[in-house]
Structure formats: structure tokens, C-alpha cells
């Protein structure tokens, strides 16, 4: 094979049998030569392990700048989420299987660790024995669940795996009297679980009530190992076969790939990673409860994988890195307020194509708000007796009316009104839509201040849902996911 030279073919055109499209591909590059192009090429040539090292190093330096035990703890939880997202990515992204029982394996890992290393039965395995054992248990249970469901695809597999999650839930919740024996502790879970003990040392979870940073480093090390191991598998014949059977199972089978076995394998890999993560969870929290491993967690991990881009390792890690701290910040009213208004403005910027119309709508909404506020204050001061705080919260309080005395019926009315307005927006003409956008935006802020702010738990997940919907419209393959073509 000789390399085709793009230049020199200009005058005569390609010879017979030569492919013009191939020969002239260099001319069609959209980006011209220049420093930007050089930079782009340079960045693209940075190998994946350099990015990984950079990322982990940045993460590892966090405790040097942040003394707060709370922040370090959130960082630890984020690493756990990154591990879970990596595991789910094997099943969903590479295997192409919709596994709704994924967090059950996380629970199995945590519970098995709790049984092997706690006062529950007085068993105290060394960590170097129990953790590999639990990874094996996770993989085997994954295989066993895969066996009866290996011929199932899509919705049917989803139902079976969902049933498995329910089964795990029922078993752990009622496991306090299995034939008269208390095994899982039922709804009260298992308490006083050992921390990791490696080479004769107990790695304490807390120093004087503050999160011990050693666990953050253990989790980071685990993350690197899992990331690299999975990446290497994906770069091997197994990884290619996984992608092949996801693309076309029949063709993969006809080309010598054992599709059923490959599906089982991806199941087992996801389960093993989840079980491994479970041990970290149990060791740090020193307790496990059934309800930790349920739908909320399942949906959160799925959100991370979908947001980042299922199938892309950096993608799902980015997803976890965004969602996990976001969910934490949304617990706090003042932080969640800033996030909400930033998201509102950001969403408007992303969806609107014309900046002038956008500016007008933005200014009109601001004016509309102050006008409504002034009118309401003139009619009855009770309408604006919201919080009067300094800073951003105070500014918002001068703009959004908060009729505290009407709280009882204002909740359903404003909420339903907002949904109706949004639905209306999708059907009206563009000019009307721009006008309608002003009260809609104001009502959104109103609902936020009056309804959501006082109920942070559902509000967190509603915001998560809105982010997902917006992302599915803007980037259906996730932030870093590869563009996939289904029908060509």
C-alpha cells in the first residue's frame, strides 16, 4: 500500500480505479491551517493516560486546599459515584444492555462486606481477603442473573433486572428472620462494620469526628485501577466484540463471536465493579441499610452515565463529577438558588439562536418582575414579605413576590399554571412564544422561590430531570459521548 498524496492530483485528477474522495480528503478539512489547528492537533494527540494522571493528581491535591471534612467527604462520595458510573458503563454503554438491577450489586457488595467484617457474626476477615472475595461474589451473582436473562433484550431484560433489584430489596428488608435467623438486620441494617484493615493497621474512618482523608486516596486508587483495567478490556478483542454485538448481534454471532457469553461477561464486569464499590461504601459508613440501594441511587447513576455519554469512560466520569457535587449543593437553599438562576439563564442562552431576541426577553422578564413586585407591594405588603436577606437572596426577594400568607393554595395553582404555560409555549407561533416566554420565566422563578426552595428533596431530583431533558434535546449522546447513527 502506498500512501496517497493529496497534492499532485490536482491537475490530472485521480487515475482510474483511484478513489478521488480518499485522495482529496485533506482539502476538505473545515479548519484551516494555523496555530489553532496546531493546538487542536496537539491536544488531540495527548494520550488518555496523561489525561487520567492529570485528573487524578488534581483530585488528590484537593485535601491540600480544602480542610473541611464535609467537602472531603463529598469528594469521596463523588469517587464512589465515578466507580459506579464506570461499572454501569460496561453493561449499558459497551454491552448495550438495559440493566435496572445494577445498584443491587452495589448493595450485595456492601452487605457481603458487612457480613464478613463486622460484629454481626463476629467474623473479621482481613481486607485483602474480603475485598477480592466480594468482587468475585459480585461477578458470580452477575453471571447467575445473566444466565436466565441472556436471551432477553431491551425492555424484557430491564423488567427481569428490575425484579432482581426488588428481590434484593425484599431479601434485605426481611432478612432479619430467615428461618428464625437474623442475617441482614432487616430495615435496621447492619451496624458497627469494620473499617479497612490492611497489613495489621486499622484505617479509621474519622479523626476526632472529621472524615479521614486516607479513604479518599483509597477510593482514588481504586478508581485508577478500575478505569485502566476496564479501558484495557475495551481495547482488546473482548471490547471489540462487545461493541460488535451491541451494533448487530446476528452479524457478530455469524462472525464467530459468542454473543450470549459476551453479554454475560459484561454483566459480570458491571456487577464486580459495583460490588467492589460497595465494600468502600460499607467500610466508610460503618453501616448498611436496604433503602440505600434503591431507585433513587439507580436513577442517579443512570443520570450520570447518560449525561456524560454512555460508552465513553471520560464521559461517565464527567457525568459523576457534575451530578454528585450538584446534588450536594442543591441541599443548601442559598447555593441551590444561585444554581437555579444560573441554569435558567444558561438554558435560555443554549436554546435561543438569536441573541437580540434573547436580550429583549431577558430585560422584559426583569422589568416584568419588578413591575409585578411593585404592584403587589402597593396592593398588600403581605405579598412581598419574603425573606429579606443581604446579597443575591435579597435581590431576588425584591423581584419575585413571595405571598407567604397564601402558601396553602398558591402551590398547586402556580405549579399547574407553569406546566400549562410551558405546554402552551410548545404549540404557539414564534412571535407569541417570545411574548409568552416573559411570564413563563417569571412564573418559573416564582415556583422556585415559593414551592421548591422549601422542599429541597424533591426539588433536587426535579432539577436533575430538567437537566436530563434539556441535554437529551441539545446533545442526545451526552456531553462526551460519540455521535451514533442508528439508521443509514
Amino acid at each position, binding site marked *: *500500500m502506498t*500512501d*496517497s498524496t493529496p497534492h499532485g492530483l490536482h491537475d490530472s485528477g485521480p487515475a482510474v*480505479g*483511484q*478513489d478521488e474522495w*480518499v485522495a482529496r*480528503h485533506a482539502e476538505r478539512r473545515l479548519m484551516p491551517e494555523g496555530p489553532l489547528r496546531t493546538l487542536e492537533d496537539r491536544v488531540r494527540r495527548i494520550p488518555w493516560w496523561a489525561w487520567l494522571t492529570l485528573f487524578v493528581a488534581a483530585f488528590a491535591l484537593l485535601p491540600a486546599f480544602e480542610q473541611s471534612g464535609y467537602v472531603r467527604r463529598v469528594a469521596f462520595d463523588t469517587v464512589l459515584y465515578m466507580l459506579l458510573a464506570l461499572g454501569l458503563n460496561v453493561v449499558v454503554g459497551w454491552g448495550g444492555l438495559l440493566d435496572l438491577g445494577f445498584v443491587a450489586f452495589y448493595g450485595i457488595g456492601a452487605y457481603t462486606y458487612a457480613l464478613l467484617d463486622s460484629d454481626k457474626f463476629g467474623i473479621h476477615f482481613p481486607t485483602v481477603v474480603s475485598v477480592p472475595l466480594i468482587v468475585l461474589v459480585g461477578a458470580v451473582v452477575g453471571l447467575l442473573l445473566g444466565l436466565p436473562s441472556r436471551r432477553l433484550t431491551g425492555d424484557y431484560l430491564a423488567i427481569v433486572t428490575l425484579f432482581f433489584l426488588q428481590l434484593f430489596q425484599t431479601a434485605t428488608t426481611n432478612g432479619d428472620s430467615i428461618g428464625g435467623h437474623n442475617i441482614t438486620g432487616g430495615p435496621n441494617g447492619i451496624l458497627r462494620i469494620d473499617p479497612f484493615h490492611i497489613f495489621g493497621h486499622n484505617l479509621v474512618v474519622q479523626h476526632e469526628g472529621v472524615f479521614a482523608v486516607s479513604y479518599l486516596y483509597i477510593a482514588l486508587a481504586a478508581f485508577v485501577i478500575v478505569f485502566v*483495567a476496564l479501558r*484495557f*478490556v475495551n*481495547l*482488546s*478483542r*473482548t*471490547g*471489540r*466484540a462487545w*461493541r*460488535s454485538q451491541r*451494533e*448487530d448481534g*446476528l*452479524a*457478530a*454471532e*455469524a*462472525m*464467530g*463471536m*459468542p*454473543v450470549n457469553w459476551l453479554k454475560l*461477561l459484561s454483566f459480570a*464486569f458491571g456487577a464486580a465493579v459495583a460490588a467492589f464499590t460497595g465494600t468502600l461504601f460499607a467500610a466508610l459508613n460503618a453501616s448498611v441499610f436496604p433503602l440505600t440501594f434503591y431507585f433513587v441511587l439507580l436513577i442517579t447513576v443512570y443520570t450520570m452515565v447518560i449525561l456524560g455519554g454512555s460508552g465513553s469512560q471520560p464521559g461517565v466520569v464527567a457525568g459523576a463529577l457534575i451530578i454528585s457535587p450538584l446534588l450536594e449543593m442543591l441541599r443548601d437553599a442559598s447555593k441551590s438558588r444561585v444554581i437555579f438562576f444560573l441554569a435558567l439563564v444558561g438554558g435560555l442562552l443554549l436554546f435561543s439562536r438569536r441573541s437580540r431576541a434573547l436580550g429583549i426577553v431577558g430585560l422584559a422578564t426583569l422589568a416584568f418582575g419588578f413591575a409585578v413586585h411593585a404592584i403587589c407591594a402597593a396592593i398588600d405588603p403581605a405579598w412581598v414579605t419574603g425573606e429579606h436577606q443581604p446579597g443575591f437572596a435579597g435581590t431576588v426577594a425584591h423581584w419575585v413576590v413571595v405571598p407567604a400568607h397564601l402558601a396553602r393554595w398558591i402551590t398547586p395553582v402556580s405549579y399547574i399554571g407553569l406546566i400549562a404555560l410551558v405546554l402552551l409555549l410548545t404549540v404557539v407561533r414564534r412571535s407569541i412564544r417570545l411574548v409568552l416566554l416573559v411570564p413563563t420565566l417569571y412564573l418559573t422563578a416564582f415556583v422556585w422561590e415559593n414551592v421548591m426552595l422549601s422542599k429541597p428533596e424533591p426539588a433536587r431530583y426535579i432539577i436533575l430531570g430538567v437537566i436530563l431533558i434539556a441535554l437529551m434535546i441539545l446533545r442526545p449522546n451526552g456531553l462526551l459521548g*460519540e455521535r*451514533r*447513527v442508528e439508521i*443509514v
Partner: protein
Amino acid sequence: MPLLELQGVSLAFGGLRVVDGLDLHVDEGEIVSVIGPNGAGKTTLFNLITGIYRPDAGDIKLDGESIAGLQPHVISRRGISRTFQTLRLFLNMSVKDNVMAAAYGHTRAGVFRSMLRTPGMRREEREIEQLAQERLAFFGKRLMGYRWEQPAYSLSYANRRRLEIARATATNPRILLLDEPAAGMNPAETHEMTELIAELRDAGGYTILVIEHDMHVVEGISDRVVALDHGVKIAEGSFEAVATNEKVVEAYLGLQTAATK
């Protein structure tokens, strides 16, 4: 002994007999064409040989050993590979990965060796890449160069057909089943495909069983032609003999025309 042999193979979908007591043999190094009108059971025949369907009756033998009822991936490893009439490429994978994936059956590295990237595993990877390069080079520059890393969906129709053949040969088969390799191609491409099939046999050393509707292709390549209609073999022999066979003309054009001819 023939390389591939079908003995009284039958298959019915419910009450419909798709293939009925079919005897067929393909010798080593032969190019055999299967022709027949739509619904004659040609693609079903391929699906039977490759294990996608299991025959209701009869036996299928590769090199004297029965392969009937084996799973498709096992049959592929025994040395039968195929292309599909309705292209079934791994569209979102690169051209290179499409071919490399098909080497799965005759490579060994397991997941643990892959995780550790042992020297043996890396050597095998290099060999697979070499193999993919060789198989794609069969088609000249069409699938080489920058196309190498491009997703399969970006290829033109004719190039997709070529890539499917390249992928099929990457399983290191002894016998290649080509399901309408020239379908949807223009006359120049069809001519090229005719030469290519002959070259696959001569240079590649594959035995070839091919379904084709284009009679110029069939005439150009076939050592032997088998005509099917309603799942039954109605004629067999050289192209001239089959093309002038009364039953074949009748199957294609209908009884009336045959009578008036």
C-alpha cells in the same frame, strides 16, 4: 469428499416448506452460484448453513463432520463465513475495528490477559491489526488510508459491500458465502466485483458459494450453477446448461412464456 455437503436438508416455517429435501455439495476451490426467483429459499439456505436456522431434517457436513444444529459462532470458527444481503456492518465502529472484531474466533487473549496487557496479548493485537490491514488491502486503496479510522456508516454503499467481504474473510474461513455481493452496484462496480470474486478464490484460496441475481456475474464467475425454486433444486450444472433449462426458464418467466418459446 466435498468441502461442504447438504443431505436432504428441509426447513419449514409453520406450514410453509422453505427448503425441501435439498442436496447440495461444494468442492474445495469451487465457485458455485445459487440462483432462483424471489422466495426460492436462497438466503434461507445460507441461514441454514451458518447455523442461524436449524434444519428440520437432513444433515449439513463441513469436511465430513456434521455442523447441523451448532451455534453460528461455532460454525464460523469451523471455517464458514458469510456476508449479508441486507448489509449488517457494525456501523458505529471504525472500518478497521469492523475487520479486527471478526478475528475474535481464532484469537485467544482472555479478559485477564487484556487487563494486564501481557506481551502475548499485545503481540496478538498486532497480528490482528496486520490481518485487518491485509484483508482491507485486498480492495486496493478503497478502504485504506484515512478510511481506516472512519466509522463504517460513512462509507458508500459499494464500499460497505466490500467491507463486509473483508470482514467475512477476517474469520479465516475455508468457505465464503456471499449473499448478492453485486446488489445495488453500478455496471462498473459489478464488473469489478466479478473479478474480485474470482480473485478471492485464486489469490485468497477460498471456496465460494454465492447467491446472485445478475446473470452476467453468474456467467462470469461460476464453475457450477444451482437453481432453486420453492425450496427445491430444479437444475444444476454449467451456466449454459442451467440458463437454458426448461424448468429454470419456467420458474423465472412463468409457464406461458416457456410454452410459447
